[in-house]
C-alpha cells in the first residue's frame, strides 16, 4: 500500500473503477452471452406461433419422414399469420378456462406453501431436536422420489379422503411438498445462530423471532423457493393428469394436444401465452417478495 503512495489517490480510484468496470463488463458479457444461448432455442417459439401451416410443413418436411435434406427454421416467418393467435385467443374459450384454472391452482399452491412450508423450514433451521437430521433427510428423500412411484399410494390416499377428481387433489399434495421447505430451510440456515440466541435472551417469543428475524433474513431463500415453485407448478403435467378426471378442472399444461406438425403453430402460440405470465412473475416476483417479506418483518 505504501509503495503506491506516490500514485495520486484519484489515479488509484480511477484504476479501481476501471478495473471494477472491466470486471463488470466482462461478467456482463459472459452472462448475456449465456442468457442469449439459453434463450436462442426459445426464439423459435414466437416465430413458430406466427407461421402458417404450409410453411411449417414445408420447412420441416425432412423431419416428417422424408429422407432427404435438413429441416430449416425461419425465425421470422416468410408468410406470417396471426391465425393461431386468433384461434387461440378468440375462438378457444377452453383456453381461458384452463388458464384461470392454472392461475388459481398455482396461486393456491404458492400461498399454501408459504403458510405451511415456511414454519416447517424455520423449524428445521432454528431448532435442533433429536431426529432432526434424519427427519430432514427423509424430507429430502421424499422430495426426490419419482412421481411414478408415489402415484399409486397417493391415489389411494386421495380416494380415501374423497379428494380424487377435485382440484384439491393436486393442490394439497403440492402444498405439503417438501421441496419449498428444503429451499427455504437453506435460506434460514444462513442466519447466524447467535442472533437467534441473542433474541431469545432478550425475551423475544418464538413467533416474534420468526417474523422479525427469520423472515427478513431468509427472504432470498423464500424468494427462490417461490419462483422455483411457480415454475414447477405453472407447467404441472403429471399430477393433474393422474388425479383430475374432469376436464373442466384441468390446468393449461394439459391443453396442448399430442403435438403434431399441423398443430405446431398453435402449440407455439399457446407457449407464448403461457410464457407471458411467467415473464411477469419473474420480473415482479423477486421484488414483490422482497418487499412483502420486509413488510411482514417490520410489522411482526
Amino acid at each position: 500500500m505504501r509503495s503506491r503512495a506516490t500514485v495520486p489517490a484519484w489515479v488509484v480510484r480511477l484504476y479501481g473503477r476501471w478495473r471494477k468496470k472491466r470486471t463488470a463488463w466482462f461478467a456482463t458479457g459472459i452472462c448475456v452471452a449465456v442468457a442469449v444461448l439459453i434463450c436462442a432455442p426459445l426464439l423459435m417459439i414466437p416465430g413458430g406461433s406466427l407461421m402458417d401451416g404450409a410453411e411449417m410443413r414445408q420447412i420441416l418436411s425432412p423431419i416428417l419422414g422424408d429422407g432427404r435434406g435438413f429441416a430449416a427454421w425461419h425465425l421470422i416467418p416468410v408468410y406470417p399469420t396471426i391465425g393461431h393467435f386468433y384461434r387461440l385467443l378468440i375462438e378457444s374459450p377452453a383456453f381461458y378456462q384452463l388458464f384461470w384454472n392454472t392461475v388459481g391452482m398455482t396461486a393456491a399452491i404458492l400461498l399454501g406453501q408459504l403458510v405451511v412450508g415456511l414454519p416447517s423450514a424455520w423449524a428445521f433451521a432454528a431448532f435442533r431436536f433429536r431426529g432432526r437430521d434424519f427427519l430432514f433427510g427423509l424430507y429430502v428423500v421424499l422430495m426426490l422420489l419419482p412421481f411414478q412411484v408415489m402415484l399409486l399410494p397417493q391415489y389411494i390416499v386421495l380416494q380415501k379422503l374423497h379428494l380424487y377428481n377435485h382440484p384439491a387433489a393436486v393442490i394439497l399434495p403440492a402444498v405439503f411438498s417438501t421441496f419449498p421447505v428444503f429451499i427455504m430451510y437453506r435460506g434460514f440456515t444462513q442466519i447466524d445462530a447467535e442472533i437467534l440466541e441473542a433474541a431469545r435472551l432478550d425475551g423475544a417469543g418464538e413467533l416474534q423471532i420468526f417474523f422479525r428475524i427469520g423472515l427478513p433474513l431468509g427472504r432470498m431463500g423464500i424468494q427462490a423457493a417461490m419462483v422455483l415453485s411457480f415454475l414447477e407448478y405453472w407447467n404441472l403435467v403429471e399430477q393433474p393428469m393422474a388425479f383430475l378426471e374432469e376436464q373442466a378442472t384441468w390446468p393449461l399444461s394439459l391443453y396442448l394436444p399430442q403435438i403434431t406438425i399441423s398443430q405446431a403453430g398453435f402449440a407455439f402460440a399457446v407457449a407464448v401465452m403461457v410464457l407471458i405470465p411467467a415473464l411477469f412473475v419473474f420480473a415482479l416476483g423477486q421484488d414483490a417478495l422482497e418487499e412483502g417479506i420486509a413488510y411482514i418483518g417490520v410489522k411482526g
Partner: protein
Amino acid sequence: MDSKKKIWRGFALFMAAMLVMTYVSRMVYVSRMPRVKWSNPTSASIRNKITAEGTVEAVNAQAVIGLDGLLVEKVCVAAGDRMEAGTVLYEVNMEDMLAQLAELSAQEEAWQKQELAKRREAATNTTRAQEDYDTNVTELDRRIAEETKKLEELMEDLDTHMFRIPEEDASDEIWIAWADERLRFDREIAEKGRLIEDIQLEKDKILRQADRNIEDARRAQSAAESGLELGASGVSQVRERQERIALLTELSENEGKVSAESAGDVLEVMMQSGMRMGADAVLRYADDKGSRTFRTVITQEQKPLVHTGDVVQLTFPGSAEEVSETIDSIVQESGGYTVTIRLEPGVAQGRTEGVMELNSTSEIYDFVVPAKALHNDGGNAVYVLEEKEGILGTELSVRSMTVRLLDKNEDYAAVADELLSGDIKVVTECDRELENGMAVKLWD
C-alpha cells in the same frame, strides 16, 4: 421503482385483458354455436301421399287377321292410333283382288252348273218312284176295296141266309141244305178274308218297296242339292270360296278398304304396303271391351308404404276420369318395384298413361320425428341433444344416433332403434350444419 410500477401495471393489464378475452372468446364461441330446436319423438301415425306415373296396358290384345293372299296396297293406321269401328285399317290392291274374284267366280259358276244337272236328274228319279208308288198303291187299294165289297156282300148273304133258318120241325134235308149253305158261306167268307189279307200284304210289300225307291231317289236328290258327295273338304272348299267371293265382293264394293270392326287402340301393325298377306295377324289392337292393367314403378323409399290390396286413385291425363282400384301385385325389378293394377273392363279406354295416387295412414309408430331431423350418417340418423362434460364444463352437444327408418312422408319420419325413447331430445331444427359431438345452444 417507476419501471416496476409499469411492470405491475402491465401485469394487471395483461390479466385484465385475459379476463376480457375470456368473455369475448366465450361470446364468439357461443355465437358460433349452432342453435337448435328439439322435440321428443312422439307416437303417431304417418299420412302419406304417393304419386307415381305409369302406363296403361291391355291385358290381352286382339288381332286383325290378314286377308290371305291379298296384296296390301296401303296401310292406313300405325301403332298407338285410336281406331273406332269403321276406321279404315288398310287397303288392298284392287286389281289383284278383282282378278282373284273373277277366277273364283268362274270356278263357282262351273261348279254351280254341274251341280244343277245332278240335282235335276235326282229330282226326276224321285218323281218316278213316287209315281210308281202311287200307281201300285191305287191298284191294290182298288183290289182291296173290290174284295172287301165282295166280302161284305157275302156277309150280307150270310145274314139273309141266317134269317131263312128252317122251322124246327123242318126236315133234315132242309136242315142239311141250310147247314150246307151256311158252311159254304163261312168258307167263302174266310177265303175272301184271306184274299184281302194277301192283297194287304202285297200292298205293304209294294209300299215298302216304293217307299225305299222314293227314299233313295230323294236321298239322291238331296245329295245332289247339298253336294254331299263332295266330302267334308269339298264342302269347306266350296264354302270358303263362296265366303271369299262374298268377302272380295264386299271388299270390292268398299273399294278395297278394310275397316276396323270394333273400337280400340292399335298396338302393333305387322304389314307393309306391297306385302302379300298370309292368314296371320297383320295388326294387333286393344279392344275397348277388354280390360287393361296399369303399371308403374315405385322407388325403394316408397315401397314400404305401398302394399298389395291398397286402394289407389288413378287419373289419366286429359280426362276427368278418376277411378279407385286396388293394387294387385308388387314385384321387385331392377331399379325399383313394379306395381300392377288390373283395371275393370272399359276403364281407361284409349289411355296409355296414368297417374297413381295413394293416400295412406300408417299404423301408429312409437317414435315419429320431423323429417327435417333426419340426416345421413352412413345411414339414417338423427341428432340427439345430450349433456357433455368438457373443458368448459357441462355443455349441450349433439350426438348422431343411427336409426332405422320405418316410414316417412314430407314432414315426418317414423324411426326405430333399440335406444330410442320418448325422452330423447331430437334436434329438429338448426341454423347450420351439425356434426357429431358439436356443442350447441338452444334456440330462444
